């Protein structure tokens, strides 16, 4: 029996897809960033993306941008055996951490909108979302079940 669960923590702008049904994927301390969780319940293949900005700048096709990360992660989980039609997505993050300054930017909201729009465009069902607000979040995707937990400062946590 394998008691070692592999936990992968994603840094800013990173993607990770896996077919290891024991794995836990996580993003720690998300503010305006948005975590995309993709999961195929039949094959237990899934992936996560730690997305920082809504739209890529020309010529910079890296997954820190939502519009790059969504199709890239989709194709990675499909490569590992997930079926497009069965995939469910969950989105977490997109908070506005500093309410006074840079209000016009509201990057968290724009990240959240861009992520929802990209999922619509690629026809992936958005099963749950925990977006917006003014609090940081840690998010974990458990590949054994597809459940997603969100933890706030102070340790309170819930599932979406």
């Amino acid at each position: 029996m394998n008691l070692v669960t592999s936990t992968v923590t994603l840094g800013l702008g990173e993607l990770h897809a896996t077919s290891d049904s024991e794995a836990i994927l996580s993003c720690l301390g998300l503010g305006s960033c948005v975590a995309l969780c993709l999961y195929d319940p039949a094959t237990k293949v899934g992936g996560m993306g730690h997305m920082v900005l809504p739209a890529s700048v020309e010529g910079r096709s890296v997954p820190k941008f939502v519009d790059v990360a969504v199709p890239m992660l989709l194709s990675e989980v499909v490569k590992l055996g997930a079926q497009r039609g069965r995939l469910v997505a969950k989105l977490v993050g997109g908070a506005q951490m500093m309410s006074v300054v840079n209000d016009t930017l509201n990057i968290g909201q724009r990240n959240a909108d861009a992520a929802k729009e990209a999922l619509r465009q690629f026809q992936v069902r958005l099963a749950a979302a925990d977006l917006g607000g003014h609090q940081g979040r840690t998010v974990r995707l458990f590949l054994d079940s597809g459940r997603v937990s969100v933890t706030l400062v102070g340790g309170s946590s819930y599932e979406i």
Partner: protein
Amino acid sequence: MISLSTSNAMANLSIMIGQEVSVENLRLRQVSMDEVAQLMGGPEALTVGVYLTVSGSADGHMMLMYQPAIALAFVDLLLGQELGSTRDLGEMEQSALGEMGNVVGSSFLNAMADSVSLRLMPSPPSVTMDMAGALLDIIAADVLLTQDEAYIAETTFRTSDQRMSGVFFVIPGDSLMQALEQSAGAVL
């Protein structure tokens, strides 16, 4: 130049809190934004951040970061109370920390503006307590738009009795970075 600006900022901080403040290390380095959160004990570490933006002839970000217990102790110093009196960050406490950010940020910018002949102004401070990673996202979003790494000036400062310390970051935006590079050569 950043060294001069930092000592100017810390001298003013010292006057404000009525204690000698020493700059423990001043480093200028190219880092990933993930690395910045590690300085505060990881992206989930509870942190108090005082954030200001730089505007005027060039742009950038400044953030003072403290462990919560230290931030509360700084509030005691600022309000002339006995250490340990402040237990949470209400409106008045946040405003005291904001003022501290204002003094440090403005004096840093004034010294820098003088030496590069630019007009640099700090925004009003914004004080937030949350996970370090979440606080840094606001800077990450701006920096990562055009770069993959941040060029940061990082200062650890401490009071002379070693009881209080914090980290002060200055992250120049593209335009401020260019101005620094064009002027006088050596940035430090």
